[in-house]
């Protein structure tokens, strides 16, 4: 199972790789052919096909246009490769999230281990623009890049994170603007109660409370509810913290669980062995 858009990203990366290779080859060939001396009677030389000399002649006439075009195309392909990121890197990030998830949520001693998708780790990246049919695609968004486990990875859950901090959405957006770690429910105070259980038939009051405490809209929660089956339930506790790469804010890691409130000390301990690896991987993009 791959993340939504991950297949397209892989295809784009390979396409960019091929385009870059071809354009560099054509550009270099054009420069080399430019230096070939054309024989005066090139059109009538026997044993050499006519198209060959016509091609050489055309290349010699348009060498500089071809070279410049190839340079522009190769640069664009290079930019696309960097923007998409190598698929192998995302595979490594996924493995790392899996390891972090396994450490944060060790299977209980009895045999009733919850399914992997009950406790997830999702890496969101902040992007100033998204290619999507939605309102304000250019205002800044938190986009899911990788998620631990094998199920629920084709998520379309993206959250607004515009420059106007008052209009951010979701746990990911809230963590992004605050650059600090947030737990829902909180450890103490008004918000320390576990998030209400949202099942298919959840009453409006619960939906309203859930939406309010997860910084989303009621409409958004109802859309999520449509995907629930039978005894399915939305996640009941969240933790999010910012991810920086070379000192620059890059995105957010969100941990969610259906099982109960998350323990800050345990989550922090679980992440410690992977902190450096994650930053190094993301810096190598």
């Amino acid at each position, binding site marked *: 199972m791959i993340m939504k858009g991950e297949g397209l990203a892989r295809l784009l990366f390979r396409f960019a790789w091929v385009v870059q290779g071809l354009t560099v080859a054509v550009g270099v060939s054009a420069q080399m052919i430019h230096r070939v001396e054309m024989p005066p009677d090139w059109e009538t030389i026997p044993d050499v096909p006519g198209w060959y000399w016509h091609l050489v002649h055309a290349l010699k006439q348009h060498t500089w246009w071809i070279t410049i075009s190839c340079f522009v195309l190769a640069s664009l392909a290079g930019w696309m490769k960097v923007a998409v990121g190598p698929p192998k890197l995302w595979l490594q990030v996924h493995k790392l999230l899996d390891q972090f998830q396994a450490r944060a949520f060790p299977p209980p001693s009895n045999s009733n281990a919850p399914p992997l998708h009950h406790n997830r780790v999702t890496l969101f990246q902040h992007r100033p623009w998204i290619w999507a049919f939605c309102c304000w695609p250019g205002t800044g968004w938190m986009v899911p890049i990788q998620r631990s486990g094998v199920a629920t990875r084709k998520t379309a859950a993206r959250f607004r994170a515009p420059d106007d901090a008052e209009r951010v959405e979701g746990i990911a957006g*809230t963590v992004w603007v605050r650059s600090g770690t*947030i737990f*829902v429910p909180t450890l103490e105070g008004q*918000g320390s109660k576990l998030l209400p259980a949202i099942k298919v038939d959840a009453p409006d009051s619960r939906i309203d409370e859930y939406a309010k405490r997860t910084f989303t809209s009621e409409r958004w929660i109802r859309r999520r509810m449509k995907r629930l089956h039978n005894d399915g339930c939305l996640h009941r506790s969240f933790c999010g913290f910012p991810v*920086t790469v070379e000192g620059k804010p890059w995105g957010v890691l969100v941990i969610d669980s259906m099982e109960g409130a998350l323990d*800050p000390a345990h989550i922090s301990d679980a992440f410690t062995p992977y*902190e450096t690896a994650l*930053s190094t991987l993301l810096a190598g993009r």
Partner: protein
Amino acid sequence: MTMSDWLKIDPRQVHVPPEVENVHGVEIQVFVSPYDIPKAIRGEYDKRERRFIIDFDYLDQEPLKELPEKHVTRVVGELSGRLRRLKIDVDALNAKTVALQVLQERVLGALDTWAGQEPQVARQHAYAAAKEAIKSTKGKVYEAFTGAR
């Protein structure tokens, strides 16, 4: 220069109280980011310049900028604003006998002052984490200073 080794910081020993915020009627607690907690610190004494230096090591590297002040110079991350290095002018603390306690107070006091000057909670937390990291070494970070004098 007297060099001392890096002292690894246990994040569990770095207690930064969370900031309570109200977001659209919902109370949340904002804790320090794991990226703002120093992974290791070290203290060294530059005999020639008579400066005591404290270095902070974090998860990621970044370009640095120096912010000189009267007696204490700080080097911070250009992008994150995290404290990377502190240079304390020992002579300016006390002309003849500089007690370790004076140095400790000056260091912790400076960190409190800078935290207070930061408008962002995340940056205040980063200074608080640096302070807690120093305290968690239980004075070991100052060993280079006491040993050299």
